[in-house]
């Protein structure tokens, strides 16, 4: 359970932090939200690329 949900839980925490930071903090908020909300997208892109590369080796 802990192993399966470790990364999803981290993504969830980052998502909430990202959503709230731009709402609560005027200066630093938006850049923090871009970084935090970018994580799920980067994670996804990385795993999809890895899958695509393994399917067509070389």
């Amino acid at each position, binding site marked *: 359970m802990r192993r399966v949900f470790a*990364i999803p839980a981290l993504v969830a925490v980052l*998502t909430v932090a990202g959503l709230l930071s731009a*709402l*609560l903090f005027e200066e630093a908020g938006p850049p923090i*939200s871009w970084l935090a909300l970018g994580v799920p*997208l980067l*994670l996804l892109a990385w795993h999809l690329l890895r899958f695509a590369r393994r399917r067509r080796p070389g």
Partner: protein
Amino acid sequence: MKPATTRAWAVVHTWTSLVSTVFMLLLCLTGLPLIFHHEIDGWLGVAAPAPLTAGAPASVDTLAARALADHPGRVIQYIGWDEHEPGLAFVILNATAGSHPNDSITVNYDAARAEKLGPASSALMQVVLRLHVDLFAGLPGKLFLGAMGTLLVAAIVSGVVLYWPFTRRLAFGTIRPRRRIAWLDVHNLMGIVTATWLAVVGLTGVINTLSEPLIGRWKATELDAMTQAHRGEPAVAANTSLDRVLATAREAAPGMEAAFIAFPGSGFSTARHYGVFLKGSTPLTSKLLQPVLLDAGTGAVADTRTLPWYLTAILVSQPLHFGDYGGMPLKLIWAALDIVAIVVLGSGLYLWWTRRRSAGAAAFALAEAR
């Protein structure tokens, strides 16, 4: 998790998704251009605000007079100031002060010169917006989409529960090569990394579908109580200067800026009061509106009190639904997450359809994951 428990959650996931998928696809597809409505309207030649002229904004009385002269046969329901574009004012006009918002037109004005800039949004984006908000079916359409949004949240929760039995033998992000299994793994991966975002956007969307009845409740209770003290006094015809109304309202709510003026008889005022709604200046306090009610005849403050929690909840939930509160990068992230959500919906539909044709494939995938 016992197999019977997994099966039960799978039934919940399948049916909450199936019932709502078509509407969720529509909402994701129409939501995508709506993220960029400001930019798209700009490209379509609409609502390009004139460059800011230095100096104080024009008199609101002049602005109102211009707007009325520009639109014969209509009356003003609201005058407001754009949240993102300083110097941009919008005027909402309708056949009568009490006419339904769906029949209104919104026109942008240069706040400094009181000059008409044009309609606030293109016809295309208005159609997209109506499809997204109420399917052109008014309040029943909104509430229906709210119900579909609730099903979406149930589908997300059940999906997160099912993530465990389906991936517990796999490293995070594993995508197995066989075609249907690959789509299952992609569905699980995309679903789990966007679950929180989609749940927030879904829930805030559902909250927004309740705005009409909640505003009605506010008018029947709070607004009614705010005007209680002045009931029975003879109504004076509205002849007060709007600039004076605005200045008086600002004095009643120090440190705040006007967001919009609701004219007498419109949705956010009474027949004999102006409602001036003021906002704070930080991203959060700009969502916490303070209404000041002023007698339309004398211009005197009738009452002011903070909005009840349920209207504040709607206002705070709106940026979390629109994604318009963190600049262009946040909009792009919103769009990317929206596209991922579309793939999750589409792959879910595909998985359901192929399972119908090859019964037991899901059980097979599950067995393989064990």
